[in-house]
């Protein structure tokens, strides 16, 4: 699974994208994996996941064809 990174997530991972080999069936599993693998994620105010350019709930199933992005706290405007 390849995921897109933005903002502070690029600094935490030190990359623009992340390729994950682990089996992560849902958005919730991905969030949990991120917090374990990169403890700095736990210090963020929130972290959301977008699947195919829309915010996804923890129950959303992930597939290898999905466009997945990690969305750290927003600060536009």
């Amino acid at each position, binding site marked *: 699974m390849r995921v897109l990174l933005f903002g502070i997530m690029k600094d935490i991972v030190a990359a623009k994208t992340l390729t994950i080999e682990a089996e992560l069936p849902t958005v919730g599993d991905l969030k949990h994996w991120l917090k374990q693998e990169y403890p700095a994620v736990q210090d963020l105010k929130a972290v959301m996941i977008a699947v195919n350019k829309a915010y996804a709930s923890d129950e959303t199933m992930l597939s290898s064809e999905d466009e997945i992005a990690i969305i750290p706290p927003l*600060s*536009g*405007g």
Partner: protein
Amino acid sequence: MEQLIRISDNIDAAEAVAFVQSEESGGVVTFIGSVRNQTKQKKVLKLVFECYEPMAILEMEKIAAQMYEKWQVKRVAMLHVTGEKLPGEVVVAIAVAAPHRGAAFEACQYAIDTLKETVPIWKQEFFEDGAVWVAAHP
């Protein structure tokens, strides 16, 4: 409904206003956001904006759709920058035209408040002694 939604290196608030003006609307309300020269008494050198553009455009389109539905606005323009911006430079411009001013004011406030909450854009603030991603930490 007519809308102008764009993310680019430079934006012109006058373009947003000109886009929404028409004879069917009695009021136009505009919000223009620009870079402040300080945050908590610390001098800000610049901001750098980054966005997840395809999703940001979709989220801005959702906001516009909600504005038509809730306030029957006639025309909406939402422009946001990406890249490096200096104090005083415009970073976001929202213009809303509606038949009456009340709807235009409310819809414009809703647009900027919701943009900050849902549109995937991030800014990094640069000070003399380092940089931070705004709002990342509690």
